[in-house]
C-alpha cells in the first residue's frame, strides 16, 4: 500500500493543523482487459477485490458498478453482525467472518466502527424457547459464543426491555451472542475500496454490465458495459439483488428470487438500547446507532420486486411490532425509510463458487443477512476465484447443491421469518 497515506495519530495531528486529506481511492477509468473483473462494488465485491490483491497477488483487477460504490445493499442494511447460525456449514462461514470483523479496522487501517455490543434474540413462546436453546447448544458445540438468559438476566443486560408478565408479548428468555453487534456499513465499503485501490485495483463506478463476452468454447472472456467491452480471464459476480439479471447474460438461470427489504431510522435520542434486540415472534429487530438513531428492520415485502422502495404498509407493520416490544418508542419520529433488493435462495443460504460457465464465478444469495458476512464472503470468494476451486468454507455453498439436493436449510436462523 505504497502511495496510501496511513491513518494514524500523527496523520490526524497533521491534518488537524490544516493539511488537506487526499482522495481515499482512485476514480479509475476502464482498461482494455483485466485478470479478474468483479461485478458489483458493494461490500462483498470490494472485499473480494481486496483479498485477491492482498492475499493472492492478483492485482490486475477491476470492480465494476452500475451506480456508486456501496450504494446498494451495503448502504441500506441494518448493520447487524452475528455468527450464531444453526447448521455447521453456515456457523463455520459466519464465524470466519466474525473473526475477521474483530480486527478489520486494524487490517484495513480504517475505522469500520465494529462494535460488539451483543445481539439479543428474544423468545416469547415455549416453542421459541426450545428453538433458541437449540441454537445456543449447537453454537457451543461449534465453539461459538451464545448463551441463554433468563428474563431477569435479559432485563439486566438490556434495561429497556419489558420483562413483566403483563407485557403484550411476554419475554420468556433470550439468546445472547456477546461478540455480535454492529459496524458502520459505509465505512466497510470505503475501507475495502481504499485498501484495494492502493493495491492497484481499479474501481469503476457508473459502469453497468450489459452482457457477457464468450469465446467459441463458451468460456467467459470479458463483459460488455455501458462504457464499452472489457476483457477478463475470470469474472466474479457479486451483484446481490441483480444477480439473476447478470447471470442471465451468461445464460445461467439461478435459484434466486429478489425481494425488497426495508429499514427505517428514527430521530436521534439519548442512549436507550445498549445492544441489538431481535424478535422473530413480534417480527422486528432494532439497534441504536452511535448517532442515537434507532435502526429498525423487519421482514421482506411479500412479492418479488426490483423497486428499492417496497410497500409502506410493510414498514408500518414493522413499527407496530417494535412498539409492541418498546411502547416508550411510540412518540419517536421516523426520519427515513428505504428498501434494498435482496436475493433469496430456497434454503436461505448463500451461493459461493463456480458456475456451469468456465471463467464465471458467483457470490450471491445472502438474502436478508449478507452484511455480517462481508469480510468472510470476500475472503473465501477471492480464494475460490484465485485458485479456480472452492475455498473449503465455501464448498458446501456451491451452486450445484440445488441439483444434488444438499441444501443448507438456515430459515430458522434468520432474525425474523421472511
Amino acid at each position, binding site marked *: 500500500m505504497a502511495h496510501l497515506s496511513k491513518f494514524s495519530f500523527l496523520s490526524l495531528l497533521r491534518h488537524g493543523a490544516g493539511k488537506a486529506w487526499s482522495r481515499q481511492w482512485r476514480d479509475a477509468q476502464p482498461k482494455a482487459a483485466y485478470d479478474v473483473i468483479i461485478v458489483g462494488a458493494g461490500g462483498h465485491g470490494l472485499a473480494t477485490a481486496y483479498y485477491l490483491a492482498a492475499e493472492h497477488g492478483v492485482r490486475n483487477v477491476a470492480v465494476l458498478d452500475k451506480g456508486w460504490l456501496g450504494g446498494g445493499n451495503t448502504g441500506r442494511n441494518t448493520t447487524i453482525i452475528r455468527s450464531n447460525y444453526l447448521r455447521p456449514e453456515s456457523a463455520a462461514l459466519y464465524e470466519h467472518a466474525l473473526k475477521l470483523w474483530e480486527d478489520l479496522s486494524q487490517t484495513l487501517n480504517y475505522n469500520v466502527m465494529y462494535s460488539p455490543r451483543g445481539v439479543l434474540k428474544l423468545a416469547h413462546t415455549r416453542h421459541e424457547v426450545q428453538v433458541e436453546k437449540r441454537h445456543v447448544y449447537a453454537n457451543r458445540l461449534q465453539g461459538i459464543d451464545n448463551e441463554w438468559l433468563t428474563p431477569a438476566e435479559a432485563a439486566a443486560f438490556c434495561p429497556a426491555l419489558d420483562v413483566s408478565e403483563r407485557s403484550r408479548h411476554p419475554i420468556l428468555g433470550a439468546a445472547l451472542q456477546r461478540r455480535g453487534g454492529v459496524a458502520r456499513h459505509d465505512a466497510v465499503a470505503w475501507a475495502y475500496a481504499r485498501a484495494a485501490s492502493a493495491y492497484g485495483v481499479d474501481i469503476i463506478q457508473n459502469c453497468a454490465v450489459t452482457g457477457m463476452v464468450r469465446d467459441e468454447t463458451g468460456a467467459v472472456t470479458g463483459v460488455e458495459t455501458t462504457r464499452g467491452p472489457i476483457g477478463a480471464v475470470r469474472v466474479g459476480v457479486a451483484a446481490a439483488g441483480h444477480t439473476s439479471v447478470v447471470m442471465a447474460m451468461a445464460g445461467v438461470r*439461478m*435459484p434466486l428470487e429478489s425481494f425488497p427489504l426495508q429499514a427505517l431510522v428514527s430521530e436521534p435520542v439519548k442512549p436507550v438500547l445498549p445492544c441489538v434486540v431481535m424478535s422473530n415472534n413480534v417480527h422486528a429487530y432494532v439497534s441504536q446507532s452511535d448517532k442515537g438513531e434507532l435502526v429498525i428492520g423487519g421482514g421482506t415485502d411479500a412479492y*418479488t420486486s426490483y423497486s428499492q422502495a417496497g410497500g409502506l404498509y410493510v414498514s408500518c407493520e414493522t413499527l407496530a411490532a417494535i412498539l409492541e416490544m418498546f411502547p416508550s418508542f411510540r412518540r419517536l419520529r421516523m426520519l427515513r425509510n428505504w428498501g434494498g433488493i435482496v436475493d433469496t435462495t430456497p434454503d436461505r443460504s448463500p451461493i459461493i463458487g463456480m458456475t456451469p460457465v468456465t471463467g464465471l464465478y458467483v457470490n450471491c444469495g445472502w438474502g436478508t443477512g449478507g452484511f455480517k458476512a462481508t469480510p468472510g464472503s470476500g475472503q473465501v470468494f477471492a480464494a475460490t476465484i484465485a485458485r479456480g476451486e472452492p475455498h473449503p468454507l465455501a464448498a458446501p455453498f456451491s451452486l450445484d447443491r*440445488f441439483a*444434488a439436493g444438499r441444501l443448507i436449510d438456515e430459515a430458522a436462523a434468520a432474525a425474523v421469518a421472511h
Partner: protein
Amino acid sequence: MLLIPCPWCGPRPEHEFRYGGAAHRAPPEDASAVDDAAWGDYLYSRDNPKGRHAERWRHLHGCGRFFNCIRDTVSDRIAGTYKPGEAPPL
C-alpha cells in the same frame, strides 16, 4: 400497497391476497426421465426477471381462488390478471 384486480371479484387491496410465486411452472412430464440438474432447475430455479413477470396470486381473504398476474417488477405496475388456463394479456 397494490390494488390487484381479481378476475372474479374485481380490484381489491393487496392485503386480501397471498403471493404465489412465478406462474406457468410445469413439472417435467416424466419426472423419472430427467436428470438431477433438470429436476433441481424445476424445483429451485426462477427467471426472476427485472421487468415483466408472470406470477400467481391467491385471493385468500376473498373468493379464495388462484389466478395469474402480469406485473412489472421495477414499477410494480400490474398489466393485467387472468384466470388459470387463459392466455396472458399483452
